[in-house]
């Protein structure tokens, strides 16, 4: 139960953090204006050199990246980090085009992406910065409490169309997924729908609703008794029901928690990555090193993700 309570706190913190970030931006803009005026008045000013760091990618990781950036900037005021989301695919294509310093990705970079990066003279370097579990969620009023991986796969490929087939109510199943540019989508396709089998070419049923944000999925699952969705553990709120998942028929049904993910009991968990386009400059390397310290990893835990050791 601890993690459920903690998520409320996290979501509140998330809310406040967006306010803080907004205020911070405003202050930043204002201070920028101030500086200009001062500069004109006094003419000569000892201008500090700032290091600008562009960080882009996974929406799953965007809050994590924001927290990291905020904390790190407190410790190192000379570094300015701008964090944007857009999805893992977006981050990696920016990496390929060499327009970011660090790309966040909730899935591993693909071979063909490395190839096209190499073509552009970019040699991506991979860092595993945190771990995440994907929770399968339904409406709180849905009597289903647990599913096997095979059942989840059959739901999303369209083999199972009604909750009654799983022992639930007589209701059509509405499948929800993130858009195809989301790392969570790709991970779910490979590890759940295809059950980790690389030869398998099964894809999502065409009936799957593709929503552009985690919040959109939570909102629909919260309100619709027919719906099933999946999302990163860090995004799950108390208003939806998390299902226990078994790796196979007969295996234990396990809820995603910090412990079950750390001990590798929960079936749907993954690494979260940061990619750099080639050997990073020293100030970027320092930032990456800091993320791996206990201080950086504490933020991982705070946001509902699982730290790497």
């Amino acid at each position, binding site marked *: 139960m601890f993690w459920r309570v903690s998520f409320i706190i996290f979501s509140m913190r998330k809310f406040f953090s967006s306010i803080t970030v907004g205020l911070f931006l405003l202050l930043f803009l204002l201070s920028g204006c101030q500086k200009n005026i001062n500069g004109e008045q006094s003419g000569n000013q000892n201008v500090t050199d700032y290091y600008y760091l562009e960080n882009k990618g996974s929406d799953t990781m965007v809050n994590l990246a924001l927290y990291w950036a905020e904390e790190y900037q407190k410790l190192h005021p000379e570094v300015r980090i701008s964090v944007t989301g857009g999805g893992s695919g977006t981050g990696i294509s920016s990496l390929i085009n060499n327009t970011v310093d660090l790309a966040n990705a909730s899935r591993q970079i693909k071979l063909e992406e490395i190839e096209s990066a190499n073509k552009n003279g970019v040699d991506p370097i991979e860092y595993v910065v945190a771990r995440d579990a994907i929770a399968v969620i339904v409406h709180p009023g849905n009597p289903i409490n647990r599913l096997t991986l095979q059942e989840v796969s059959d739901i999303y490929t369209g083999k199972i169309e009604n909750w009654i087939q799983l022992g639930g109510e007589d209701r059509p199943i509405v499948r929800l997924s993130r858009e195809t540019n989301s790392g969570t989508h790709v991970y779910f396709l490979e590890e759940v729908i295809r059950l980790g089998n690389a030869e398998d070419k099964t894809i999502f049923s065409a009936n799957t609703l593709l929503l552009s944000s985690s919040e959109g999925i939570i909102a*629909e699952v919260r309100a619709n008794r027919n719906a099933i969705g999946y999302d990163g553990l860090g995004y799950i709120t108390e208003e939806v029901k998390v299902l226990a998942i078994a790796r196979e028929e007969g295996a234990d049904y396990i809820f995603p928690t910090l412990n079950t993910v750390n001990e590798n009991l929960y079936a749907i968990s993954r690494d979260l990555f940061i990619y750099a386009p080639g050997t990073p400059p020293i100030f970027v390397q320092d930032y990456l090193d800091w993320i791996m310290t206990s201080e950086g990893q504490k933020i991982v835990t705070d946001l509902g993700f699982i730290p790497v050791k």
Partner: protein
Amino acid sequence: MKENQTRNFEKIITRTIQFSGYSSILFVLLILFFLLSEGTPALFDVKLSQLFSERWYPIEDYFGILPLILGSMVVTLGASLVAVPFGILTAVYIAEIAPKWLQEIMKPLVELLAGLPSVVLGFLGILVVSPFLRDTLNLPTGLTALTGSLLLGGIAIPTIVSISEDALNNVPDSYRHGSLALGLTRWQTIWGVTVPAAKSGILMAVMLGVGRTIGETMTVMMVTGNAPIMPTSLQALFMPIRTMTATIASEMGEVATGSPHYHVLFFIGMVLFLFTLLVNVIASNISSRKLKRSERILS
């Protein structure tokens, strides 16, 4: 000296205005060229039979754009069904029936509606319209083509109302007076004389309204569920759907420049451009059409 200066000034002004005029043509041509140069390679990257197949799942190289084209058409059709009757009737009410003071309140209100950002309508859709439709029509989900149609109808209505209303106001009062003098009722005058006289203006209003709905992105992306289901019957209106605009908007950010997926997205852009072009051509044909004999006599 002074005269010379004025003349030079005149010349500069003329050139500036001329340049602004030509620049819009230039921009359209540049955009068209860009679209064609990025979109046509799709025809070589992807087989035609594959391009017009029924499955869209680009990350595994399924590039069937048929469900997207039909999806856009279903939503647009639904939006027209909502917006055209409602819009024209509203225009008739404002122009012909409403008392002066009400006219003066309603006109700016309708125009205010036109300025509503589509994201706001999308929010309205997610929070109000979609749950309402799910519960009242007992649908599996409220994120359907119908939800998109209703909201897009809301986007098209202000356009249709304000242009139709202008057209109705341009009908000379002598028509109305003549008709009433012949003993026709108010309703017969409106339906038999005023509206037919403003027909071309009203048709243009409809086409422009429809044009807006085809290109609308944000609202449909938020409320239609974005599932690339092939619409096969009218039933499709009550199911989720994926439009061309939503596809481009949500996938453009992720594609690697120059990949088949990238070119196909531009190809979809070309199709979309073709659609809006078609609508605009029809609209301008209506407005510049030669008047029929009967209409000439009437005017």
